[in-house]
C-alpha cells in the first residue's frame, strides 16, 4: 500500500554541504504488514517517519500511497490515510482523554464543523479497542506513560487511517507496559488489519512484532527483509557495533537478541 522511492532529506539549507539525514531510502509496505525501522540514534528513523507522514517534504524521491503520490494530496487528505503516533505527547492544558481522542477526527471535519454523534461513536470505539474506555473522563496530563501512549494510539485509530506510523512506541515505558503496547499493536493488526511502520531501539520488540524490518544507518538502508532473515548477529554488529547472541526462543516464540559485548 505504501511505496517510498529514493527518499533524501537534509535539515540544512540546500547546498550548504550538511549531511543528508535520509539518503536514497526506498521502502515497501504491504497492506496488513508490521514493518520495523531499526537503527542507532541519529540514523534517520524519525525523519523517515515524518516524511512518510507527509509532515516533512522529501528533498528527492517520492512516497506513493495506494497509487497516489502524497505530495499531490492536501494535508487533510494525507491525514485520512496516514496517522502518526509521536514518541511523546504532552499537553500544556488540561485536555480530557476524550478531547485528545476526538482530535483524531480533525482531518474528517470541515473548517468550522464540530464533532457529531458519529465522531463520538468512532472515538468511543477507539477507546474500547485500546482498553482505555474507563479513562475517557480523566485529564490526559494525569495519566501514566503507558496509559498516555494507549490514548494517543486511540487518537490515531480515531483518525481511521489505513497506515499507522509509530515513533518508538515503547521507549519511555517499563517492561510491563512494553508488553501491553506490543499486545495492543499486535491485536489491532490481527483484528483490524491495521498496517504499521514502527521505529524502535528494542530489537526484541521488533522480533516479536514485525514481519519485516528495515535497518537504517546514517540515513541509508543497510539491509531489509523478513525479520527472521534480516535480524542476524552480523547485521546487529553492522548496525550498532555490538556483538550479540541472536537465537530463536521457543518460549517467546520469536527471535531474541542478547547483546554480549562491544564489537572489536
Amino acid at each position, binding site marked *: 500500500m505504501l511505496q517510498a522511492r529514493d527518499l533524501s532529506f537534509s*535539515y540544512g539549507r540546500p547546498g550548504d554541504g550538511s549531511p543528508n539525514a535520509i539518503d536514497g531510502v526506498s521502502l515497501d509496505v504491504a497492506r496488513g504488514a508490521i514493518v520495523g525501522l531499526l537503527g542507532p540514534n541519529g540514523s534517520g528513523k524519525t525523519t523517515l517517519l*515524518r516524511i512518510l*507522514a*507527509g*509532515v*516533512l517534504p522529501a528533498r528527492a524521491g517520492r512516497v506513493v500511497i495506494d497509487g497516489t503520490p502524497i505530495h499531490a494530496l*492536501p*494535508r*487533510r*487528505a*494525507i*491525514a*485520512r490515510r*496516514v*496517522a*502518526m503516533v*509521536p514518541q511523546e*505527547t*504532552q*499537553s*500544556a*492544558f*488540561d*485536555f*480530557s482523554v*476524550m*478531547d*485528545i481522542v*476526538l*482530535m*483524531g477526527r*480533525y*482531518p474528517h*471535519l470541515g*473548517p468550522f464543523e*464540530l*464533532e*457529531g*454523534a458519529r465522531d*463520538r461513536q468512532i472515538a468511543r470505539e477507539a477507546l474500547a479497542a485500546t482498553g482505555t474506555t474507563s479513562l*475517557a*473522563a480523566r485529564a490526559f496530563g494525569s495519566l501514566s506513560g503507558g496509559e498516555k501512549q494507549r490514548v*494517543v494510539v486511540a487518537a490515531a485509530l480515531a*483518525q481511521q487511517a489505513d497506515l499507522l*506510523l509509530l515513533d518508538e512506541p515503547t521507549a519511555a515505558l517499563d517492561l510491563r507496559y512494553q508488553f501491553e503496547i506490543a499486545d495492543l499493536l499486535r491485536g489491532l493488526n490481527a483484528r483490524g488489519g491495521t498496517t504499521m511502520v514502527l521505529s524502535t531501539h528494542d530489537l526484541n520488540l521488533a522480533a516479536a512484532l514485525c514481519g519485516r524490518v528495515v535497518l537504517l544507518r546514517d540515513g541509508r538502508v543497510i539491509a531489509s527483509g523478513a525479520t527472521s532473515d534480516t535480524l542476524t548477529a552480523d547485521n546487529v554488529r553492522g548496525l550498532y557495533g555490538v556483538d550479540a547472541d541472536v537465537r530463536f526462543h521457543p518460549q517467546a516464540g520469536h527471535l531474541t537478541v542478547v547483546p554480549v559485548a562491544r564489537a572489536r
Partner: protein
Amino acid sequence: MLRRSIRARLGWTLIAFGALAGAACVLAPLAGSTPIRLRAVFNPSIPYADNIDAQIFFVARLPRVLAAALVGAALAVSGVVFQALLRNPLASPDTLGVSAGASLGAMIAITFGLDFSLLGLSAVPLATFAGAAGALAVVYGLSVARRRGTSAMVLLLGGVTLQVLLGAAIACIQFLADFTQTFRNVRWLMGSLDVASFAPIAASLVPMLAAAVGFATLPHALNLLSVGAESAAARGVAVERSERVALVSASIATGAAVSLAGPVSFIGIIVPHLVRLLVGADHRLVMPASALFGAAFLIACDLLARTIAAPLELPVGIVTAIIGGPIFLWLLFRRA
C-alpha cells in the same frame, strides 16, 4: 459536561457567558456618583432630550463600559492565543513584547509632544498602535526566521529579550522627559479606560474586527497545536499558516487594546485560566468564553476603580493587578 456533545457545550457556554457580559454592559453604567435607574433610562415616554438618566447612561458612562468590554475581550482572547501558540499556560499578551512596543510608542508621543491626528485619532493612540506594530514586525521576523523544528521556546525567549530591550528604551525616554511629561507617562502606564466619546472605540473596532476574523479560524487548530506541532501537522493542520495567523491576530488585538486603554495587566493571563477551570481546555469553548468573560471582568474591575475611592477614580490597571495578582497566585499554588 463531558458526556454532552461539543455542540451542546458550546451552546451553554455562549448563553452563560453571553448573559454575564450582557448584564455587565447594562448594569455597570447605572453605578456612579449620580445614581440612575434602568427603568428611567429605557422609559420611552420621556423624550431623550429631557431624560437625564438616559443621557448619563449613554453619553457619560456607556462609552467607558464599552471600551472596558472591548479591551477586556481583546486581551483575554490574545492571552488564550499566545498561551496555545507558545504551548505555555503562563504566556500573556505582554510576553512577546507587543505591549512594551505599544508603551514605547506612547512614551515617545507624550515625551516629544507629537501632535497630529489621523482618522479622528490623536497622536498618542496612533503612536501606541505604531509601537505595537513595530514590535509585531520584530516578533514576526523572528518567527519566520526560526528554522523548521525549532521549539516555541525560541519565540518565547526572543519575546522576553525584546521586552527587556523595549523596557530599557522606555526608561531612556522617561529619563529625557520633563516633570509634567513624566507625570503623564506614569499615568498612561497605569492604564485607564477614561474615554470621553465613542470615537476612539469606533477607531479601535477596525483592527479588533480584523483580529476577530483571524481568531475565528483558529480554535480547532489551536487544540491540536497545543498538544504538539508535529502531531498537529500529521493530522492535517496547516501548522505554519495557523501559527502566523495566531501571532498576527493576537498582536493586532493587543495593540488595539493597549492604544485604547494603556497596558492593563493580568487580564490576558487570569481570565483564560478561570475560564478553563469552568469549560475545560477546548479552545472552541475557551476562546468565546474568554472574550465574554474578559469583557465582564474588566467592566467589573473598572466599576470598582471608579467607585471604590469616589470621587477619586483609580486607574483600572491598578485594580486589575491588585485583584488579578492574588487570584493568579492562588491558581498557581493550587496546581502545585
